[in-house]
């Protein structure tokens, strides 16, 4: 095996040559920043975003641990650490945001056939195909297994009919991984299959959803007599629930380590907001009642951060506590936003117009957006159920 120091030097040299100047720290602030999700419909304000994605994708370093035969980097854990360290050292931007990487790829590696892995993984890794997730339905929220979108076996293909909801970026995605009902007579968990569907197939349509906070990446996705090839079934027919659960684990792990991205609302500092709007006396937030509420919240946040660190240090026994992180992460975030808008006063409920600062208007939207945090990815009540049954062993 290659010496790690040699590997480090190689990585350094490669990054030096291949990471464009606007993709690292010290980039010219006048160059527009892209949120790079890849895919067939991708548009780039900065051409270097695309160059950086292509180079990293070709190396397989967007999924460095995946074997080279599937387009990955084929690196071991120590090498990945080195890669991350060297990218961090030059402040290199993540080349690709991707539900394919975060959710689908781990499932394909575990459940996909050899052909499926060879077909889909390289395109995920290179950012050529952008994926979205088709799980929830209007009639199936927390009770996901009650889903009704049906896929009928009509000989040489499946015929899919139904509707998905809360499909993030469905209007921008190329393919969707969806849960469909293939066994209408089986008990509800035993009649579900995991199916990959090309969004360009006739009969697939999407419609964006407007939230209480305004525009959102969420869509409704409709399937009207959509023909799906048989080879797009992952795993066995009617054995999709296990795959769905595995994928949810990846999703939860992802949410708890990265948050919900822009869905987590505002990154503004609560204490500075309070000092600005409520007032400051001798360096202290001048209203004692706000101050004590903020202090209590900050203490909880501190302890939560330490718990996150402890779970990491204990070495990934996180699955039992993933529900706790989802629950507390989102509930704390909601609380933080409530405190922020309260401290901002009237300006904290500003909606539009020139009388208010942009950051305050954004805060109002951010606050409303966080209301979805404790619903998406499993509601807080579902997390409490999981903890009480799986962790505490309370009876059903």
């Amino acid at each position: 095996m290659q010496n790690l120091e040699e590997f480090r030097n190689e990585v350094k040299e490669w990054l030096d040559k291949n990471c464009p100047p606007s993709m690292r720290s010290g980039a010219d602030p006048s160059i527009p920043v892209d949120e790079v999700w890849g895919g067939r419909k991708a548009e780039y304000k900065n051409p270097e975003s695309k160059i950086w994605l292509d180079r990293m994708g070709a190396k397989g370093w967007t999924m460095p641990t995946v074997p080279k035969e599937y387009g990955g980097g084929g690196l071991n854990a120590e090498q990945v650490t080195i890669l991350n360290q060297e990218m961090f050292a030059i402040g290199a931007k993540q080349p690709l945001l991707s539900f394919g990487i975060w959710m689908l790829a781990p499932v394909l590696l575990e459940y996909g056939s050899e052909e499926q892995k060879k077909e889909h993984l390289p395109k995920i890794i290179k950012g050529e195909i952008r994926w979205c997730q088709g799980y929830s339905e209007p009639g199936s929220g927390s009770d996901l297994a009650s889903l009704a979108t049906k896929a009928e076996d009509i000989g040489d293909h499946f015929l899919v009919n139904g509707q998905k909801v809360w499909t993030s970026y469905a209007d921008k995605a190329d393919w969707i991984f969806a849960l469909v009902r293939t066994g209408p007579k089986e008990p509800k968990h035993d009649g579900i299959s995991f199916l990959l569907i090309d969004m360009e197939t006739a009969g697939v349509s999407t419609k964006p959803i407007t939230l209480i906070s305004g525009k959102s990446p969420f869509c409704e996705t409709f399937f009207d007599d959509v023909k799906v090839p048989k080879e797009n079934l992952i795993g066995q027919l009617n054995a999709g629930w296990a795959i769905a659960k595995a994928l949810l684990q990846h999703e939860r792990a992802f949410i708890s380590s990265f948050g919900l991205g822009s869905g987590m609302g505002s990154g503004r500092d609560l204490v500075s907001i309070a000092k600005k709007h409520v007032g400051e006396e001798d360096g202290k937030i001048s209203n004692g009642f706000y101050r004590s509420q903020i202090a209590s919240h900050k203490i909880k946040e501190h302890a939560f951060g330490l718990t996150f660190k402890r779970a990491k240090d204990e070495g990934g026994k996180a699955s039992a506590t993933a529900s706790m992180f989802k629950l507390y992460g989102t509930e704390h975030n909601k609380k933080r936003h409530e405190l922020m808008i309260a401290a901002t006063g009237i300006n904290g409920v500003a909606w539009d117009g020139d009388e208010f600062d942009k950051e305050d208007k954004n805060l109002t939207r951010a606050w409303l957006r966080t209301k979805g945090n404790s619903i998406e990815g499993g509601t807080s009540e579902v997390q409490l159920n999981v903890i009480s049954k799986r962790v505490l062993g309370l009876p059903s």
Partner: protein
Amino acid sequence: MKLVLTEEQEFLRDTAKDFAQERTPVTHFRALRDNKDKNLWDRDIWQEMVNLGWSGILIPEEFGGSNFGVAGISVILQECGKTLTPSPLFSTGVLGAYAISNFGTQEQKEKYLPKIVSGEITTALAVDESSHHDPLKTSFEAKKNNEEYLLNGKKTFVIDGASADILIVLARTSGNSGELAGLTLFIVDANADGLNIIKLDMADSRNYANIEFNDVKCSNQEILGTVETGGETVERILDIGRIAMSAEMLGNAESAFETTIEYLKQRKQFGVLIGTFQALQHRAAEMFCEIELTKSAVMAAVQGADENSNELQRLSSLAKTIAGETLHLVSNEAIQMHGGIGVTDEYDLGFFIKRSRVAEQIFGSSTYHTERYANLSGF
């Protein structure tokens, strides 16, 4: 540093766990209370703890201790907290041992530390003077009189003060109540002339005293640390105490919680186990999360103490706040979820809520420490 126990600490925890389960189950505490024991702790049990080396955990090896650190003593207190084990381990093995090991003169260390290690003496820290913890408000007076000081005033709520052989007393040698400067710590023999030790009867049935000082003489040799800077010194000792107490409170909470979960799994009403009720399940799950947060806060504070972190004060206030709030919640919910049996004296849960509310007051309540955390954080 990683937020996990070392092998050494795991070994100490296992030893303490066995000891607490076998030698001092809650029945041990109940018997002391029922018998109105003079000290409310047992000399033989204490000697067994001493023989395990626990009184010397914060004491350097040259004086016979093991120097296993705050992490070592905290895992022990946590296990002892699970069975409400009463002993002078906190007042002596944490407060006395830490204070003298870290701030004592060579002479004081030689005089006291080996006796703490051997169990020959126990100690107590006398700080408070009113119903609320606030070291800066010390007005207890120490007046210089040639080569000695004369101590006058009254100390309240001195933990294990009714049995201690040695008292470490915070006194004002100059300045006014509310000022950090002008405070000095003194080591006083509990048998000194002019002392009046009044044993307190508290809800948790543990050992406390109010102590009156009338012209109690204390020589220059018995000043702990330096004159006039006792305010900083005592804050340090208190922070170690707050962290160790948080560990014990965590143990209290874990135990009351575990008892409650077991009860939910066996108690039937309306023909079903009450643990099937979602109204109870969700509250149990929330308690689980609060306990997890408390574990992390306590562990971070413990490590901060052993690493001399410059965040120590904040971590100490964090740990004491969270431990206080969690134990408060769990002790209340434990009783409610048990129903009628929870409010009977025959059942042990009452001991936990009584201990909770007293421990919450020790060296500052959650309110006190939230305020302190806010000040230290610049809120």
